């Protein structure tokens, strides 16, 4: 695959995944377009060595995770404050339990903000596994391939990650209840 139009088709096909994963894993929409651009340019540079689409998607997942890692490193260096309260948020309102009235929407937003914070507190690999499994609906096998981990390790990370999220959300709720 060398043509510009073919590459454009590849970008169009996978841009949704790349943008969503970047948003979820970095916890921010800031610079997401630049990061996605970086992902696809890295993909383009490595494109000569693919033999099939499956290999390419695996490579794309890996690049995306690497770009996220680089972004976290950059943030750590800058010691900048990461905001999880994104002004553009709103997708959480589509979740079950979020009703029409303002109080419910606010509560849904607070819970989602809590979830985003809890996600950010997980280990990198737990966060990656959870996002790939839930959001992108990747199989255990595919996640294991992308992360170069044994299948059981992927299962363990998913289980532990979910458990930690639940605990943190409960703690958050308890804190809210006691402060209220």
């Amino acid at each position, binding site marked *: 695959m060398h043509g510009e139009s073919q590459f454009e088709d590849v970008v169009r096909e996978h841009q949704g995944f790349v943008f*969503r994963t970047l948003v979820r894993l970095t916890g921010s929409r800031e610079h997401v*377009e630049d990061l996605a651009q970086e992902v*696809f*340019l890295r993909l383009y540079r490595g494109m000569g060595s693919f033999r099939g689409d499956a290999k390419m998607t695996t490579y794309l997942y890996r690049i995306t995770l690497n770009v996220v890692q680089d972004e976290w490193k950059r943030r750590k260096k800058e010691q900048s404050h990461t905001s999880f309260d994104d002004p553009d948020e709103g997708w959480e309102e589509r*979740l079950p339990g979020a009703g029409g009235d303002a109080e419910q929407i606010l509560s849904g937003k607070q819970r989602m903000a809590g979830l985003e914070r809890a996600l950010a507190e997980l280990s990198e690999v737990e966060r990656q596994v959870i*996002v790939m499994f839930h959001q992108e609906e990747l199989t255990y096998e595919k996640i294991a391939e992308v992360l170069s981990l044994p299948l059981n390790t992927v299962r363990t990370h998913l289980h532990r990650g*979910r458990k930690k*999220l639940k605990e943190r959300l*409960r703690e958050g709720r308890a804190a809210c209840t006691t402060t209220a």
Partner: protein
Amino acid sequence: MHDDGVNCRAVQQALREGRELIGEQSVHFDECEACRDAYMDAWLTAALDAKPEVAIPADFAARVAAMAPARPEKRARVRTPRYWGVISAMAIVTVILIVCFASSKPANSWVSLVLVMLVTAEIAGLALWLGPTWIRR
């Protein structure tokens, strides 16, 4: 799980279907750890499954494709030294030497001397070649 006249299954079913809990169901939910846990689990799954909406510029793909260089950069290939030629050459030499030693008489002839020198050189060569690899382990 406890049953205070309200069935856990019914409460959890109502929660799954997004129905509002009323009266006893609501009281039961506040007191039942299992129901709260099931609710939390379902909420977490739904929240994690939801895909964040992202606004991708319409011309994003075209812009990225235009930014890509005309040809993918060729990766600088790391050439790994191929030892198979050396190994086969050494094997052939060894076989020849064994044959020569087996057929030559144990005398102090110049042929024996040359053969001994060859074996010595071969061993020295092997030591030089394999030595650094073993040391690195």
